[in-house]
Structures are given as C-alpha cells and as structure tokens.
C-alpha cells in the first residue's frame, strides 16, 4: 500500500504549479470549476490560494456518466453551480483523483453544454495509473502507481481532508 501524502501540503504544491502553468500560458482571469465531491473540496482551497477573482464553480457530473444503466444515479450530490457563462472562458477543471478518465470525459461534456470555453486546463491532486481514455492532466499534485485492486480517494472529516487507500476484496 502506498504512503498517503499530507493533503494540505499537496494542495499547496499543486497551487504553486498551477500558478506557474497559468502564467506560462498567459491565462490571467480563469474560471475554476471543482468536480463534486472531492474535486470541489480541492478547488475551494486552490481558489483561495490563487486568489482568483471569478467565483468558484462546481460540477455534478452524475447525469453525464457512462454507467447509468449499470449502476444508476449517485445519491445526494449537489446540483452544478456555474457562476458565469463559460463562453470564451479559460477554465480550470479540478478533481481529486485522475484514474480511468471517465469522470473528466463526463465533465467536459457537461461544460460544453453550458457554452464554448476558450480553453480547459485539468488540475488533479493525484494522478494514478490505469487510464481507460486518452485524457491527461496538465497540472498534477502527485503521481502514484497502485497495486491492482487498490483505490485512492479523498475524504473529509471534521473539516480535515485525508487521502485513504482502499483495497477491494
């Protein structure tokens, strides 16, 4: 089992790298969107750290997932809230863990149903192995290789974010 890194310092590193990336791309006024639920937690902290002027958006991708017929709806996820039009915006999509890539595929489809952005940057706290789609992140907190059957997810307890690894039986 991999060591579980300290989340706060990891988000801090991610924020610094994101800042460097944005200046290199000449992106000055991005619209940050966190994917429910873990991505929204990370995005909230990044949004503070980078002091972005546009309000933070959140995305609930339940209705865009590709596995609705096999596993149904995810219960009790808050609705999507995008503060401004995404038309011609430079978007930063934030998620906790990039694994298969299917969540990001669903998120991109949803964002495009709100309008046509100028660009989309993907920032993730953890990038792990085993992609199933041609999707990659531009900014990554930490890269991990996990054993088969192992999963990593972000949890929140008493306002503290923690990464936990789960082994499937």
């Amino acid at each position: 089992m991999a060591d579980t890194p300290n989340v706060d310092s990891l988000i801090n590193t991610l924020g610094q790298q994101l800042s460097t990336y944005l200046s290199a791309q000449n992106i000055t006024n991005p619209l940050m969107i966190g994917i429910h639920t873990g991505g929204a937690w990370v995005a909230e902290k990044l949004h503070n750290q980078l002091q972005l002027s546009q309000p933070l958006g959140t995305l609930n991708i339940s209705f865009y997932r590709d596995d609705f017929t096999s596993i149904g709806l995810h219960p009790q996820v808050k609705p999507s809230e995008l503060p401004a039009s995404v038309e011609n915006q430079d978007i930063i999509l934030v998620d906790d863990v990039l694994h298969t890539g299917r969540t990001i595929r669903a998120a991109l489809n949803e964002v495009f149903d709100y309008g046509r952005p100028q660009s989309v940057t993907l920032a993730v706290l953890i990038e792990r192995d085993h992609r199933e789609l041609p999707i990659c992140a531009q900014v990554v907190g930490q890269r991990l290789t996990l054993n088969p059957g192992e999963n990593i997810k972000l949890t929140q307890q008493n306002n503290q974010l923690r990464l936990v690894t789960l082994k499937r039986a």
Partner: protein
Amino acid sequence: MERSALFQRQLQLTPNGQLRHFLDVEGLPKTLLTQILDTAESFSSVANQNVKKVPILRGKTIINLFFEASTRTRTTFELAAKRLSADVLNMNISTSATKKGESLLDTLHNLEAMHCDMFVVRHAMSGAAHFFAQHVAPHISVLNAGDGQHAHPTQAMLDAFTIRQVKGSFDGLTIAIVGDIYHSRVARSQIHAFKTLGAKEVRVVGPRTLIPQHIASLGVTAFHQLEPGIADADVVIMLRLQKERMSSALLPSEEEYFRLYGLTMDKLKAAKPNVTVMHPGPINRGVEMDSEVADGAHSVILQQVTNGIAVRMAVMSLAMQSGQSPELKG
C-alpha cells in the same frame, strides 16, 4: 402497515427498494420521497445550461398515453423526457385505435411491441395506471400522470418540492388544502406526501358536499369554513373546482362558492404573515382565488410549474435506473 399501503409498495418498488413504477405516494417510505426531492434538486440546474439536456436516458423511448385532456402535465412530462435525452411519443388516445374498438390491454401490448421503456399514463378511471403496471413487460416502467379521483403523485411531489424550496423543511409546518377535496386526486396524493415527509398538521377545508366523509382516516382535520381552516397556516393550497366531474348539484353557484371559500388578500390575513399560496392549475380566477392573491407576493404558482419539470425528470430517471448504489471512481 395497512393492506392497501403494502400493496402499493410491493407494486411500485423492486425487491431491493428501488422505484420501478410511480403510481401513488401511498405506501412509499420517507427515504424514497426524499430521494426524489434530492434528485430533482440536482436536475434543477439543467435549466441554466445553454443546451438544456443531459444524456442519461439517451436511447430510451417514453410514451405519453393521455386518455384525458391535459396541458401542463403532458407538456412538462414531455419536456422532462426530452431534457433527459429520451425519445418521447405523445399518443392522443381519443383519435386512436381505442376509438376503433381495441381494448386497453391490446393497445398496451401493441405499444410494448414497439420496444418502448416507459409509459406515462393519464386516465379518467381510477386505477388505470395500476392496471398498466400489473400487465406490462418486466423492463417497462409506468408513471401515473393522474387516474380518475385516485392519485396524481408527480403533482404532489412537485408541490412537496416547492414547499421544501420555500420553507426549508416540513418540520412544524401546518398545511391547509382548500376546495374540492372530493374530486381531487391531487389532494389525496398531497395528504400522503406531506404526512410522510413530516408536516405537523395537514387540514382540508371546503363545503361538506366536497369533502369525503371519512377523510379523517387519512390523518387530516376537516374544516368547513375558510378562515378557521387557514388560521396560522404556513402553506395554503387552493384546488380547482372540478366541474367536469360533478354529476349532481353540489354547489349553489360559483359566486357563492367564491364568497365563502374564495381566497382574497383580506381572508389570507388569517394565515401566518409569511404564508405560501399554491394552486396546481388551471386556476379559475374569481372562483378559487382573487387575481390579487394569484399574482401576489405569497403566490408560488409559476414556481410550481417550473419545478414540475425537475421533479418529473427525477422520477423518470429513478424509475429507469437499475442495479445498486454506484461507487464513483475517477
């Protein structure tokens, strides 16, 4: 649990408790009603999208079977299906094969043969949607869009959604349902929904001729005068006089009904100052309520129509989902 409630639950839920058909609120547990409201809340943001559509029911075929006239209910069911990316077909039964002598069961089997996934049924006979649910193929879901004087569960859920949106929760709420309770399938479904969701008190208000005799068995209090009936109420729901269902002289005249039971700004003062006024539509202005009330600050009548779409999206997608609770991996 009462026998009728148990029957309703068994017919509507899968063995693991998921919604299969939505025919009546009676017999459904609070957790399921709350799940419908929460899911509807998630869907409410779809209306803000440029492309007002989500792909989850892509490839599903939904047939609106309306044996009885409807504008709001049929169009919001149609819009809900389209916003879920389903293909939707509106069958106007009065101009179809039933006129040529085909039985209801034969119509049903013919539609099944077209590989559809869901029927939305409105019928003037109580129990029509239940009849469909008992005879459809196992993969098909049936939603009740109003059957006779029996039930109109999606209307009750959209009213519950609107109340939760405005008041935050059902805790401590006093809700008065005013008017033609006798002919109202909406009132029956609302009573079951509001009681299950935890309202403090549900009242029915109307003339003796329009209130069923044994209504107290549903756990509500009956009032025959408007002002005591809405005294200190948090929510007042006005129902339409269903003249088309009245076979005998139940009322002297509409003018007298309005004088005794019509809601005016003055009479509304009996309720709480922040009272919410609702009406499932269509409104007879000057019969059930004054225009001043219908268009006033307490009224959420148009909000009810908007919410109807999100609630029907929720019920359709919950009935179409199968399998167990998903585990997100990303």
